């Protein structure tokens, strides 16, 4: 590798190609990433624990396979690390909590098995919000995730360590989970690319649940092309997760041709853009110009009643999270952070009929949202975060009503998408006056990840926000 392309600067696809060609060894990539995770990870509070010995063994196995002339997997030698809610048999998995600090699973998550089989290196466990329940990266036990662009600002959560580690080039990519925006918040706030897949596309087996009707697993990486490579490996049916049985198997890289002619992007007026600040709106409009320059057509639509959809999401998540946590709320109430307790407790007070209504209306409301916000288009363009990245202080200190409002602004554009079960790709689109990243989402139809990645990759051919590095990284 030349000085212009140090090992840590390689994205997922670049790293896989460098290993496959023999330009670099998997062991060298692993050692570089481990060193950066150890030295720089604490600055962003991104790392829970490294798994160096296992990762180095896996890297040496890749190098030996290449030396023998064996066929290598599509992610052979690529250094990754993941949110600490993916189970690996025999390795602790705390889920950001005090309660599960000593939990050691006896199964391995389906997605980790798929990444292992593709030759990826799993370097360790990354920071997350307690039980994946904060959109800002707040964790009362482990400390707040910190944004590599400015340590006083939120990293976004709940996949806080995944966002920070990818942005700071500690790893080439990472997995996160998204129940109300937990992949898209850190992707947007840290300036990386993140995909929340269609519910039921990526198997949940072996990942700590929060709200099974809404939970999804997906990747964070530097580019849409990197995301496409990772998705081609982790997506698809799994007999251990019945929700994936109708999931398609696709080569998501095959459609990345940079040509958006024939693609229509809807821009819904109302709810999403009304919440955006002027500087965010300007960046959103600039991103639309780039997408049009790549050949896309844009049309204006109108968002439907989002208050109802947000209430549906809140109720479903509340009931399911309370169901999963009730025993610990009863037996170990003192071991929850106050913010997390406050988010789970309402779930114990909803009538059963309301929960059933929210689930029974899901298909109808999804169709209605698609018909109104997307109309005949292929995707919807909305902000991921309609305001500049907040500081940690704004979301933790002072008047509780103002803190709640600041946290609410983070989830304004994300949470209902999980109730709708739709795929959403978050892409960085420049920087606000404070020097923090801004981002937009492309939301697709169920299993429409292919066209979202095609649009995202075309956009990134024409822009460079995803290539910019945080200070001192």
């Amino acid at each position: 590798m030349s000085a212009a392309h140090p090992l840590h600067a390689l994205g997922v696809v670049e790293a896989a190609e460098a290993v496959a060609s023999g330009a670099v060894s998997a062991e060298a990539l692993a050692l570089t990433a481990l060193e950066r995770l150890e030295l720089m990870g604490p600055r962003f509070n991104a790392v829970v624990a490294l798994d160096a010995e296992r990762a180095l063994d896996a890297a040496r196995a890749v190098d030996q396979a290449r030396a023998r002339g064996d066929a290598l997997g599509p992610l052979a030698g690529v250094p990754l690390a993941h949110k600490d809610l993916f189970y690996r048999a025999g390795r602790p998995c705390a889920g950001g909590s005090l309660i599960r600090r000593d939990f050691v699973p006896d199964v391995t998550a389906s997605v980790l098995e798929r990444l292992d089989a593709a030759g990826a290196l799993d370097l360790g466990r990354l920071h997350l919000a307690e039980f994946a329940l904060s959109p800002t990266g707040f964790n009362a036990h482990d400390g707040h995730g910190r944004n590599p662009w400015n340590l006083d600002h939120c990293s976004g959560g709940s996949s806080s360590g995944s966002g920070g580690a990818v942005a700071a080039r500690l790893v080439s990519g990472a997995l996160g989970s998204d129940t109300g925006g937990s992949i898209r918040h850190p992707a947007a706030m840290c300036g990386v690319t993140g995909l929340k897949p269609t519910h039921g596309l990526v198997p949940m087996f072996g990942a700590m649940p929060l709200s099974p009707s809404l939970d999804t697993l997906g990747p964070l990486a530097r580019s849409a092309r990197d995301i496409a490579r990772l998705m081609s490996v982790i997506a698809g049916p799994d007999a251990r997760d019945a929700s994936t049985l109708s999931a398609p198997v696709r080569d998501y890289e095959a459609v990345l041709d940079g040509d958006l002619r024939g693609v229509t992007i809807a821009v819904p007026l109302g709810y999403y853009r009304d919440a955006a600040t002027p500087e965010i709106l300007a960046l959103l409009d600039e991103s639309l110009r780039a997408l049009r320059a790549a050949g896309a057509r844009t049309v204006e639509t109108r968002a439907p009643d989002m208050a109802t959809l947000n209430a549906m999401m809140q109720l479903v998540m509340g009931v399911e999270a309370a169901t999963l946590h009730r025993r610990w709320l009863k037996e170990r109430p003192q071991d929850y952070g106050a913010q997390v307790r406050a988010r789970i407790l309402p779930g114990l007070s909803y009538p059963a009929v309301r929960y059933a209504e929210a689930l029974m209306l899901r298909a109808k409301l999804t169709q209605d949202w698609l018909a109104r916000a997307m109309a005949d288009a292929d995707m919807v363009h909305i902000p991921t975060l309609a305001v500049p990245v907040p500081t940690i202080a704004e979301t933790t200190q002072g008047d509780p009503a103002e803190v709640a409002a600041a946290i609410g602004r983070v989830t304004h554009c994300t949470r209902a998408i999980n109730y709708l079960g739709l795929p959403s790709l978050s892409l960085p689109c420049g920087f606000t006056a404070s020097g923090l990243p801004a981002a937009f989402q492309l939301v697709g139809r169920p299993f429409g990840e292919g066209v979202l990645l095609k649009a995202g990759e075309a956009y990134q051919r024409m822009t460079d926000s995803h290539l910019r590095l945080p200070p001192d990284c």
Partner: protein
Amino acid sequence: MSQDDAAARLRSEHGVSADAAEASAAQAVARAASASVAAAADRLLTLDETPWSFDTLRALSAAARPETGR
């Protein structure tokens, strides 16, 4: 319902202890979301449409064109 009633209800129905203010705040959140969901159900939920499930919608989409998902 008073703050004390909210805490007592959490304790009796779920065995969960919470102070009066915390329980009351949780109840207020639940009441607001419940009202929105109930109003939507009044407008939209009909007996004949309940079998049209989210899983069915997704399964139909899975067979759609790869490039657009339609």
